[in-house]
């Protein structure tokens, strides 16, 4: 599948939309190539650049047993309409799926307004929301085909570009995590999520370290996750999000409930906003010392 990850995801969504007359797609003027052909459908609603109204409308549709899928930039679909998400979508347990594109530094040169490095924690704070962070094309395919099988509100983060590196992995949505690299004798593991899974895989090839891709960030199989982690001597949590905004608090919270003897190291962004407008993603990661070389240095 050499397609852009967004095309894989939204092609599947479009197919479901065309079959299911109870499904509505809403956006805040975000353009997605795969959905262009359905833009004139009366169940496709472009709310314009008005995220609060966008989410309120999805809630009103949800109150009448409609399925809704809302997509747009992850930073704007979270911070700009947070109360609406918490109250109207989550409190009413709407069958609403929020798709945030542009996670991490995928839209690097637009600056901190477009850097999706805290949105995971926003949804982690809302009890009813599930969170899924899609790392690769294979996972995008599975998640988009099964998204509405997950009841209630779900937040999905979606990368851009061709992310074709985990095509042989058999993902289990219920389990919520999967080894993307596994060596028989390794006592070290990188736990990562989203785009960083790709970098972790590359480092793993060189250093022979296991990589665990945590993609479902709530209600994953906690017991199995702990049982796996307990066997390692060294665990590195590697995340493109800030130390408070990403997977670090989620994992440390789980670890705090069990005795994990392993040495835990973290490599993620310091709690700071970055007013960098000219660099590409790789340069930003280098400057923030969370790039591939920084990960290699840890081992």
């Amino acid at each position, binding site marked *: 599948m050499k397609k852009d990850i967004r095309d894989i995801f939204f092609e599947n969504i479009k197919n479901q939309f065309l079959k299911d007359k109870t499904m509505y797609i809403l956006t805040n003027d975000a353009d997605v190539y795969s959905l262009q052909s359905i833009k004139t459908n009366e169940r496709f609603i472009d709310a314009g650049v008005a995220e609060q*109204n966008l989410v*309120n*409308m999805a*809630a009103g*549709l949800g*109150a009448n*047993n*409609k399925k809704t899928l809302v997509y747009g930039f992850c930073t704007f679909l979270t911070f700009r309409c947070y109360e609406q998400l918490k*109250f109207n979508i989550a409190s*009413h347990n709407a069958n609403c799926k929020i798709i945030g594109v542009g996670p991490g530094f995928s839209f690097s040169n637009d600056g901190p307004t477009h850097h999706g490095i805290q949105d995971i924690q926003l949804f982690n704070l809302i009890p009813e929301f599930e969170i899924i962070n899609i790392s690769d094309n294979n996972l995008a395919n599975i998640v988009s085909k099964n998204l509405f099988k997950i009841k209630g509100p779900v937040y999905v983060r979606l990368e851009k570009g061709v992310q074709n590196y985990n095509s042989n992995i058999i993902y289990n949505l219920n389990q919520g995590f999967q080894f993307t690299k596994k060596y028989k004798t390794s006592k070290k593991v990188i736990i990562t999520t989203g785009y960083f899974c790709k970098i972790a895989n590359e480092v793993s090839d060189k250093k022979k370290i296991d990589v665990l891709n945590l993609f479902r960030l709530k209600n994953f199989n906690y017991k199995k996750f702990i049982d796996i982690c307990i066997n390692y001597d060294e665990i590195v949590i590697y995340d493109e999000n800030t130390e408070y905004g990403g997977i670090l608090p989620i994992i440390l919270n789980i670890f705090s409930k069990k005795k994990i003897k392993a040495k835990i190291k973290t490599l993620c962004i310091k709690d700071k906003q970055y007013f960098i407008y000219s660099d590409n993603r790789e340069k930003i990661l280098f400057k923030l010392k969370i790039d591939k070389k920084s990960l290699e240095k840890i081992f």
Partner: protein
Amino acid sequence: MVKNSKKILKLKKKIKEIRYNFLKLISKGVKYHIGGSLSVLDIIVCLIYSNKIDLTKTSKIRNKLILSKGHALGIFYTILMDLNLLSEKEYFSQIKNNKFGGQLDTYNCKYVDWSTGSLGHSIGVSIGMAIANPKKKIITIVGDAEIDEGSVWEGLFFISEKKIKNVHIIIDRNKLSASSFIEKKEVLDKKVLNQLNLNIFRGNGHNLINIFKYLKIIDKSKSSLAIFNTIKGNGIPEFENSLQYSHGQPDKRLITQVLKNLQN
């Protein structure tokens, strides 16, 4: 003439009864925002007793009402009791068990079409409901302080632009927020609203003929916005235009006196 019709006289009587029964709840120690409840009372009574919102039918098959200024919920419960849809015993049991509180919510009362508490959300939610139910009217009542919320305007512009036909917004313009006197002349009196693709209505929210004129507009297949001038605490001189009784509770002596005056 509607003016002298039996219907109007009957509704005037009903308004008095609901006002009295609402204040009776206050006298029994239930805390509500008196001012904003009494300002919108006449409008809610007209909507429900004219069957524009027929609460005897299930939510799935009737028009819907979102009381965005949810702090006026005491009026709603009083009406439910008056319609024998909620017994007094059940009401006080719900209060005792902390099921009925200071806002409406869909989990604890089946007659509530949308939970409230966060201001400015209801117009957008109404649009979603309107799209899902094109043959029904979705009526939402918002306070005049609430229209400061940007989401109110996002919703209004969307209705206008997309020509949504079945959302009806009523602004209870009592000119008092929770903490201060407000006018909003620039927004509500000038031509800004007239530019929107909605039926705009301006009237007196305590004049039943005015209210019924608006109810006819709701029947049309175009969304509407009504600005009703009202008096906070209407009908009770001690509470009228009072910041103190916007959300403050009267003492036992005062509420007893008010009820006595109403009886007389």
